[in-house]
C-alpha cells in the first residue's frame, strides 16, 4: 500500500511544475548551512572559515539536490516524456520520413490486424455466452453415419433433456437458412434457427428486452439485436408484434443482446423459434437430430460425463431393440459450431503467414530509413555523447522514437484493419452461405495490434539504434567525411534489402501461383455453359403440395416460363450444378453381371456396389445447361409420369458399361426385379456436376417428371437470351400466378454459383495478389532508399571517376550492377524458398505445381522490373553528376 501511495505522490510531483519545490529545497539547504555556520562561528572560527567548514561537512550541494530530485519525481517517466517530446519534434522536422515510415508500418500492421481479426472471430473467440468452456458438442458414434450430424436419435435426446446430473442442460437446433420472414405485408429472406426448449437456458443468454421462451411455448420468436435494429428500427414496441415465418404465424417476445449471434460461428441468426417437441414439426423418436450441445454439470469431468452418457445411449438403444453399440463423444464447443472454420482455417493461416512477411518487409524498410537517418544525425549524437550522455541513454532515445513510429503505424493499421476486415468478410460470403461474423475491434484485436506494433518497433529499432550510437567521437565531430560506422551500416542495409527482395519473391510467387490456379479453374472445361442461366429455388412441399401435384405445378410453371420473352429454355434440378451435392444409386445393367470394381464410395467408409452417380433433372436439361449431346436426345416434356422410364447418361458411364458400343437404346434397372425398366435415350459429354475439382465420374440423369415422389426443394434453371437478372421479376410474376403463396428463394445465376465454388481460391488469389503488390512496393521503396543513399555517399568518388575519363554510361552500369547484385541475391534466396513453401499451399493450387516454370519466370520478371524502376532515378542522378561541381565542393 505504501508503495502505491509513494508512486502517486511521485507521479504528482513529476506532473506538476517543479519551480516551487526546487525553491523550497534550496532554502532548506541554505537554512541548514546557516545553522552549521553559526555553530562554527560560536566555536571561534572566522566567518570565511566557518562557511568553508560548513560546506565541507555538507558535501556537494548540487549532488544532494540531484539525488533529491531523483527521489522527488519519477525520473524514468520524466525522461520518457522528454524523449517522446524530443521524438515528436524530430519527426515533425522530417515529415517525409515520418510519413513513409508510418504508412508502411500502418499497411503492414493493418494487414496483420485485419487477417488476425478474422482468425479471432472464426477460430479463436469463444461464444459470448455464460461460461462457454463448459459447453460441449455431443456426437454419437458406433453406427453408420452418412450426413454430418450429431447422429443422436430424438428419443435419446429427449431423455437426456430431462436428466440434469451429467449435463445440466442440453439443446439441439436445426438451421432454417433463407427463411421467409414477413412483417406486416413485407416479406424478407433471413436466417432462422429452430431450437429445442432449453436453448437459451443452456447457453445462459438472457433477453436484452422482453424474454426468451419457456418450455412448451409455441409460435413465439426471439429476434437478434441486429435484426431488431434493422427491421424494426430498434422500436421497443416490437414485443407482441405478429410476424410470419415461411407462412406460419409467430409473435415476437424478446430481443437477444447485441453480441449474441447464435451457436454457429459465421452465421448470424436473426430469428430463433422453438421447435422439436413443441409441435410445429413433430419428430419420431428414431429420427436423428442435427446438432446437439450440452452444458457439463458442475463438478463433473469430461471423462465422467462421456462414460455416463454412453451408458445412457446404450441403454436407450437396447430398449427399442436397435442394433449397434453406440458411444457418445464430447467435444469442447466453447467456440461454437462452424462450417466455415473447416473451409477457411488453412487459407487464413496462409494469409496470416503472408501478411507477417509483408510486415517484415515494412520493418526492414523502416530499419533502413532509420539507419540512413542515424548517419545524418551522427553529429547530433556525437555532441550529446560528448557532453556526457551515456550510450544507453541515446539508445533509449532512439528506441523511443521507434516506439512512437510503430504506435502511430499501429493506429493507422487499426483504422485500415477496421474496414479491410469487413471487406474480406464480405468477400468470402457466398449466396449459399452468407457470412455473418462479429469482426468489430475487440480487446483481442486491439491487444494484437499493440503487441505487433511493439514487436515491430523492436525489430526495426534496435539495430539502427545500436549502429547509430557506435561512434568515433573525434571523427564524427569533425565536419565533412563520414566516420567508419557508415560502411558497416551500408553493408547491413544491403543485407536488409536483399532480404526484402527475397521475401517479396516469396509473396509475388505465391500470389502468382494462386492467380494462375484460379485462372486454370476459371478456364476449366466444365462441360456446361455457365453464362445466361438464372436460378431460383422453390419448395412446394413446404406449403403442402404432394407427389403428382408437384409434377403438375412444375409443368404449369414451365409452360408459363417458356413463353416469357427472353427465355430460351427452362428446366429444374434437384441437385444444382456445383452445389457440392450428389447421390449414388445402385443399378443393374441388363446383360452384365455386377463386378467388385463397380463399387463407389458414398461417404468415407461407406461403399455402394454396382453404383453410378445419379441426378433427377427436368426436361430440356441438356439444352438449358448448355451441355454437349454426343448421341441420342435430350429429356423431353413427354417423359412424364406414366410413360416408360428414360435416362440420359454421360460419356464416362457409356464407356464404362458399354465399351466400344453405343449406349443409346440400352436398358438398365434399379433392382434385380426390373432389370430393364429404364432405357438410355442419350449420351452427353462429362460435366463437373458436383464440384470443379472432381474427376470424371459415371453419371446417369433420370427424368424428374417420371419420379415425383423423390424430390422436395428444386431449383428452376432458366437459360435466357438477355441479362439473366433482368428476367427475374417477370418469372416471379408468372410463378405467383400459378402458386401465390409459394416462396422463391436463393435467386442467383449459374455464373454466381461458379464464382461461389471458387470462393476460397478467389479469396486467396485476390488477397495474396494485394499483399504481393504491397510487398513489391515496399521492397522497391527499400531498394530505392538504399541506392539513393549510396549514390549520395559516393558523389565524390563518382565525380573523380568522371573527371578521370569514365563515361556516364559506366557510372550507370555501376549502379545497375549494384542493383542487380541485390535483386539476384534476393531471387536466389526467394525462389528455392517458394518451392519449399509451395508444398504447404499445394492443396489450393489447381493445374500446376509450386515449381511452375511460368510462375517462376513471371516472378523474376516482376522483380527485375521493380529493380529497374527503383534504380532508374538514382542511376540517372549518378550519371548526371557534374565532376566540376563535386570536386569544387570537396
Amino acid at each position, binding site marked *: 500500500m505504501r508503495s502505491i501511495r*509513494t508512486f502517486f505522490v511521485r507521479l504528482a510531483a513529476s506532473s506538476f511544475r517543479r519551480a516551487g519545490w526546487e525553491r523550497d529545497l534550496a532554502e532548506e539547504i541554505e537554512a541548514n548551512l546557516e545553522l552549521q555556520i553559526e555553530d562554527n562561528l560560536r566555536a571561534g572560527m572566522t566567518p570565511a572559515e566557518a562557511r568553508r567548514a560548513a560546506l565541507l561537512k555538507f558535501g556537494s550541494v548540487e549532488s544532494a539536490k540531484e*539525488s533529491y530530485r531523483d*527521489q522527488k519525481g519519477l525520473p524514468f517517466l520524466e525522461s520518457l516524456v522528454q524523449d517522446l517530446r524530443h521524438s515528436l519534434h524530430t519527426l515533425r522536422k522530417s515529415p517525409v520520413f515520418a510519413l513513409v515510415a508510418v504508412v508502411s508500418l500502418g499497411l503492414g500492421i493493418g494487414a496483420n490486424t485485419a487477417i488476425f481479426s478474422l482468425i479471432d472471430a472464426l477460430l479463436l473467440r469463444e461464444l459470448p455466452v455464460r461460461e462457454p468452456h463448459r459447453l460441449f458438442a455431443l456426437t454419437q458414434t458406433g453406427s453408420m453415419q452418412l450426413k454430418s450430424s450429431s447422429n443422436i436419435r430424438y428419443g435419446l435426446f429427449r431423455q437426456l433433456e430431462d436428466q440434469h446430473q451429467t449435463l445440466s442442460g442440453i439443446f439441439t437446433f436445426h438451421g432454417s437458412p433463407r427463411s421467409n420472414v414477413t412483417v406486416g405485408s413485407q416479406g424478407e429472406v433471413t436466417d432462422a434457427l429452430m431450437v429445442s426448449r432449453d436453448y437459451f437456458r443452456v447457453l445462459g443468454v438472457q433477453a436484452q428486452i422482453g424474454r426468451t421462451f419457456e418450455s412448451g411455448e409455441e409460435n413465439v420468436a426471439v429476434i437478434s439485436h441486429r435484426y431488431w435494429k434493422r427491421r424494426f428500427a430498434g422500436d421497443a414496441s416490437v414485443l407482441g408484434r405478429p410476424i410470419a415465418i415461411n407462412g406460419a404465424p409467430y409473435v415476437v417476445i424478446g430481443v437477444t443482446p447485441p453480441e449474441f449471434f447464435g451457436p454457429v460461428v459465421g452465421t448470424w441468426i436473426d430469428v430463433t423459434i422453438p421447435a422439436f417437441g413443441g409441435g410445429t414439426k413433430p419428430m419420431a423418436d428414431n429420427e436423428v437430430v442435427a446438432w446437439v450441445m450440452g452444458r457439463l454439470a458442475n463438478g463433473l469431468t469430461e471423462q465422467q460425463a462421456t462414460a455416463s452418457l454412453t451408458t445412457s445411449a446404450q441403454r436407450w438403444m437396447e430398449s427399442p431393440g436397435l442394433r449397434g453399440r453406440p458411444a457418445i463423444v464430447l467435444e469442447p464447443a466453447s467456440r461454437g459450431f462452424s462450417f466455415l472454420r473447416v473451409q477457411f482455417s488453412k487459407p487464413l493461416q496462409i494469409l496470416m503467414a503472408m501478411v507477417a512477411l509483408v510486415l517484415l518487409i515494412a520493418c526492414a524498410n523502416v530499419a533502413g530509413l532509420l539507419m540512413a537517418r542515424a548517419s545524418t544525425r551522427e553529429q547530433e549524437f556525437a555532441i550529446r555523447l560528448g557532453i556526457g550522455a551515456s550510450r544507453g541513454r541515446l539508445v533509449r532515445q532512439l528506441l523511443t522514437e521507434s516506439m512512437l513510429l510503430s504506435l502511430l503505424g499501429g493506429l493507422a493499421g487499426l483504422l485500415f484493419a477496421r474496414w479491410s476486415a469487413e471487406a474480406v468478410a464480405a468477400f468470402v460470403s457466398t449466396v449459399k452461405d452468407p457470412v455473418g461474423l462479429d469482426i468489430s475491434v475487440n480487446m483481442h484485436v486491439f491487444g494484437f495490434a499493440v503487441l505487433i506494433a511493439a514487436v515491430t518497433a523492436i525489430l526495426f529499432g534496435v539495430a539502427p539504434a545500436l549502429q547509430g550510437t557506435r561512434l568515433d567521437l573525434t571523427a564524427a565531430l569533425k565536419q565533412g567525411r563520414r566516420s567508419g560506422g557508415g560502411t558497416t551500416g551500408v553493408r547491413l542495409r544491403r543485407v536488409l534489402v536483399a532480404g526484402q527482395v527475397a521475401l517479396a519473391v516469396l509473396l509475388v510467387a505465391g500470389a502468382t501461383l494462386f492467380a494462375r490456379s484460379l485462372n486454370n479453374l476459371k478456364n476449366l472445361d466444365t462441360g456446361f455453359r455457365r453464362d445466361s442461366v438464372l436460378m431460383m429455388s422453390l419448395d412446394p412441399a413446404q406449403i403442402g403440395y404432394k407427389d403428382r401435384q408437384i409434377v403438375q405445378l412444375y409443368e404449369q410453371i414451365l409452360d408459363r416460363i417458356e413463353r416469357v420473352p427472353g427465355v430460351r429454355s427452362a428446366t429444374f434440378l434437384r441437385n444444382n450444378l456445383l452445389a457440392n451435392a450428389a447421390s449414388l444409386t445402385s443399378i443393374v445393367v441388363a446383360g452384365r453381371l455386377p463386378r467388385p470394381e463397380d463399387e463407389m464410395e458414398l461417404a468415407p467408409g461407406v461403399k455402394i456396389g454396382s453404383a453410378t452417380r445419379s441426378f433427377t433433372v427436368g426436361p430440356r436439361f441438356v439444352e438449358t445447361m448448355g451441355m454437349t449431346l454426343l448421341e441420342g436426345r435430350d429429356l423431353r416434356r413427354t417423359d412424364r409420369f406414366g410413360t416408360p422410364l428414360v435416362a440420359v447418361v454421360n460419356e464416362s458411364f457409356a464407356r464404362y458399361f458399354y465399351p466400344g458400343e453405343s449406349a443409346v437404346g440400352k436398358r438398365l434397372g434399379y433392382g434385380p426385379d426390373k432389370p430393364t425398366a429404364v432405357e438410355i435415350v442419350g449420351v452427353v459429354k462429362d460435366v463437373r456436376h458436383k464440384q470443379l475439382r472432381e474427376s470424371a465420374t459415371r453419371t446417369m440423369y433420370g427424368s424428374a417428371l417420371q419420379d415425383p415422389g423423390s424430390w422436395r426443394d428444386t431449383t428452376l434453371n432458366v437459360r435466357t437470351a438477355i441479362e439473366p437478372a433482368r428476367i427475374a421479376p417477370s418469372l416471379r410474376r408468372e410463378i405467383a400466378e400459378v402458386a401465390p403463396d409459394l416462396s422463391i428463394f436463393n435467386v442467383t445465376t449459374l455464373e454466381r454459383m461458379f464464382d461461389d465454388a471458387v470462393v476460397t481460391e478467389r479469396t486467396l488469389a485476390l488477397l495474396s495478389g494485394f499483399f504481393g503488390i504491397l510487398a513489391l512496393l515496399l521492397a522497391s521503396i527499400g531498394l530505392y532508399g538504399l541506392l539513393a543513399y549510396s549514390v549520395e555517399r559516393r558523389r565524390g568518388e563518382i565525380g573523380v571517376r568522371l573527371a578521370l575519363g569514365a563515361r556516364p554510361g559506366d557510372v550507370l552500369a555501376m549502379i545497375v550492377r549494384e542493383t542487380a547484385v541485390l535483386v539476384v541475391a534476393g531471387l536466389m534466396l526467394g525462389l528455392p524458398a517458394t518451392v519449399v513453401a509451395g508444398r504447404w499451399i499445394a492443396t489450393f493450387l489447381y493445374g500446376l505445381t509450386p515449381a511452375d516454370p511460368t510462375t517462376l519466370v513471371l516472378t523474376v520478371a516482376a522483380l527485375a522490373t521493380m529493380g529497374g524502376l527503383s534504380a532508374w532515378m538514382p542511376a540517372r542522378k549518378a550519371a548526371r553528376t557534374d565532376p566540376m561541381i563535386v570536386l569544387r565542393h570537396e
Partner: protein
Amino acid sequence: VSGKVDAWQISGDRLLVNYGTLYPALLKLEQEGYISAEWHISESNRRAKYYSLSAAGRKQLRKEAQQWEHTTGIMARFLSAEGQSS
C-alpha cells in the same frame, strides 16, 4: 525528535550522515507518509524546516525497533555462544 540538528545530536556525532543521502531519505519517508515536514521559525529567528513523526511513522518505528531488537538479540546470543565454546 524534531529537526535534523537534533538527529545529529542524538546520534552523538558518531554517525556521519551524508547530506546527499539524508535529503532523499527524508523525502522518501515523507512520500511514504511516515514523517511530515513544516516550516517554522527557529530560536535564532530563522526559517527552518521541521520534520515530525506521524502516527504511521511511530507505528513503523516501533515495528522496526522490535525487529532490530530481535535481530540484535539473536546476534548477541550467537556471539556469546561463540565466546563460551572457544
